[in-house]
């Protein structure tokens, strides 16, 4: 499920990679809201009885960005394999609740400003109206440390998500103590 307003980019990548899983496009970040997802890539485990058995956490598919993320991607993969094969979980319900990232009132409002911005982009069909930008900016003021807002906005306003603005944001986020997911699966010491 892609947290992405750029349907073309999602379709192109999923097609190129020949993904066999269902690939959904969540342009309004509905699932981010429902499951407390504040950055990508992230994973949530849901069992046969519709129970959340592992909360959203950073789960890189590989070690490509390991120097930056400080995450050993294999740790989650191994936990996942064990759960799929034997049903054995690494967290009980109390721990799942402990590590959920619940939203602040401001984050919930930021998500709605972002939705208005996306709706305006679609209506105006020029992809980047001034009105849309106003709401994206308001969303960032309300949720300055949420990656789905701050970094997710970058391509929408023509900012390189790997450029100067991004590293400025990473600096802010690091100075704030790297808030976000709490579980820290596979975190390694530098």
């Amino acid at each position, binding site marked *: 499920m892609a947290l992405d307003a750029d349907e073309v980019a999602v379709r192109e990548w999923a097609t190129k990679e020949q993904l066999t899983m269902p690939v959904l496009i969540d342009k309004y970040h509905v699932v981010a809201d429902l499951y407390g997802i504040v950055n990508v890539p992230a994973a*949530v485990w849901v069992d046969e009885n519709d129970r959340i058995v592992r909360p959203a956490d950073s789960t890189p598919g590989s070690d490509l960005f390991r120097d930056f993320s400080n995450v050993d991607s294999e740790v989650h993969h191994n936990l996942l394999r064990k759960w799929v094969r034997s049903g054995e979980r690494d967290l009980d319900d109390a721990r799942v609740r402990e590590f959920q990232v619940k939203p602040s009132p401001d984050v919930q409002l930021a998500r709605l400003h972002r939705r208005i911005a996306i709706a305006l982009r679609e209506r105006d069909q020029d992809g980047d109206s001034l009105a849309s930008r106003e709401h994206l900016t308001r969303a960032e003021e309300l949720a300055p440390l949420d990656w789905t807002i701050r970094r997710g906005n970058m391509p929408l306003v023509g900012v390189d998500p790997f450029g100067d603005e991004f590293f400025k944001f990473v600096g802010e986020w690091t100075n704030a103590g790297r808030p976000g997911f709490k579980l820290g699966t596979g975190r390694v010491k530098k």
Partner: protein
Amino acid sequence: MNQGRVVNQEGETTVVDVASNFGEFAVSLADFARATGWQLKPEGLCIDEICVPIREANRLTDGASIDLVEFARVTKQNIVFDRQRQVAALGERADSRGDSMSSLLAPDFKLPDIHGRQVSFSDFNRRKRLLLAWSSW
């Protein structure tokens, strides 16, 4: 009436008529039900089997339209709206989102896949599911 848009909690966008002479962001009664899934009944504002009583009906409706700002207040939802651009977005408040997360019940959702087909999370129930969030950014 002016044409506007409402994005609801499920991320569905509905084109609506926005009243020019009532409320902060009021939509016609028919559009209200289409956009929100809620209905105005004699017993109050209702969705599925749940009804919320209304104390100040004249703030909610003028008989032709319903003010979404008052609706959101009564039903304890968030609303953000842009009156000038005629767009409103409804969403869950932080406290109730926190409560629903604590229940550990996996909420259902419906989204388009890359081929444009609507897919529900519950289409895959009764099996283990890995919900992976990623993006192009």
